[in-house]
Structures are given as structure tokens and as C-alpha cells.
């Protein structure tokens, strides 16, 4: 029972590079979310999706893009990485009125 799986777990990027954080869930959840957590801060919502083909911006979407072509997958794309994007990224999913299940996180450093 894998739950929410994120890859990679760690990544170092140079300023201006691009990359995609992968997220997949096997619980058939409609709702999926990307959060970032900075030191001493809570979880801030980047993007979310209420179902395949539907995505919307969260609190801090600038510099990121997402897609949701299937129920299972919700990749997060970073374009032109900046030091401000150094953070730990969490993907999460839930069903209607259910609890949120998180992946283990992806630690990204932009140098």
C-alpha cells in the first residue's frame, strides 16, 4: 500500500535550471495538492487539483506549474529555478471530506 509517492527525495539545482517533481497516489483520490515548507514556517499551498484535467493556484504559485492528466499523477514543474525556491515540497491527496495523506517530501536546494 504505497499511498503518496514523491520523487526525487533530494535534488540540487543551479539557478535557471528547470525540473519536475513527480507525485503519484494509488488511493484513487480526486483531490491532490502541492505544499512547500520553509524553515519555521507552516505548509503553504502552491497548486491543487480537484480532479483529472482541473488545476488551480494556491497561495504561492509563482515560478511553478502543474498538470493533472490522470487521477494518479500530479507533477510539479519548476521553471527557471531561483534560490527562493529552496524548500521542502510535499505532495498530498485526499478524498471528499477525508483526511489529507502526504508523501515523504522532496528536498530541493537551488544554488
Amino acid at each position: 500500500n504505497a499511498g503518496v509517492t514523491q520523487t526525487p527525495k533530494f535534488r540540487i539545482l543551479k539557478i535557471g535550471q528547470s525540473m519536475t517533481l513527480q507525485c503519484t497516489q494509488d488511493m484513487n483520490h480526486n483531490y491532490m495538492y502541492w505544499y512547500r515548507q520553509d524553515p519555521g514556517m507552516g505548509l503553504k499551498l502552491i497548486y491543487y487539483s480537484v480532479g483529472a484535467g482541473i488545476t488551480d493556484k494556491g497561495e504561492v504559485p509563482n515560478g511553478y506549474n502543474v498538470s493533472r492528466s490522470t487521477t494518479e499523477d500530479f507533477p510539479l514543474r519548476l521553471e527557471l529555478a531561483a534560490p527562493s525556491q529552496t524548500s521542502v515540497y510535499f505532495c498530498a491527496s485526499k478524498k471528499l471530506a477525508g483526511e489529507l495523506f502526504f508523501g515523504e517530501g522532496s528536498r530541493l536546494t537551488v544554488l
Partner: protein
Amino acid sequence: DQQVKQNSPSLSVQEGRISILNCDYTNSMFDYFLWYKKYPAEGPTFLISISSIKDKNEDGRFTVFLNKSAKHLSLHIVPSQPGDSAVYFCAGGTQGGSEKLVFGKGTKLTVNP
């Protein structure tokens, strides 16, 4: 606008005693609240929740209390154990629509043996 506030960044208690973690909120539209627990290098895991129509929910050693008039909730852990040492996040959510959760900044609990 910080809709969910956890004003204590850290809390230290002795093993066997009670841990009380506090959370305040400003959004009256929240339908439910949740507490998540996070260990280092892991994702947050769900601990306990409470509906906005309830004032208490209990699950083993964990009890969450909700005071709607004060827009305040608290998590009580009795008795505290060293394995409870983690960061605890409070979150508020509204049913329907995006089902987004709004998280506080977290409180780091340390339970000393």
C-alpha cells in the same frame, strides 16, 4: 492574513505529564479542524480531527478541544511519551469546493524522558 495561528514555536514537557498544544483561527467558515504530526525527514501524518459542530474529540491519549466562541482549539496528549516528540501542525478546512486545508506554522514538542 494568517488564518491559522500556532503562537508557540516550541513546547517541552516531561514524560508522563500532559502536553497542551494551542491553535487559534480567524476564519469562521472552517467546517473542521485537524492536527498533523511530523517527524524530521518525513511527511506529516494525520493525528486527530474535530468537526466545527463538536467541542471535543478523543482518540486514545489524544484529545482535541474546540472553543468556537474564542476561535481556539487545543490538542491534549496524556500521558506524553518520548515518541510524541515531533512538530505538530494545526489545520482548518472547509467542505466542498477545493477542500483546501490551511495550516499553522507548527509547534515543536519535545518530551523529555
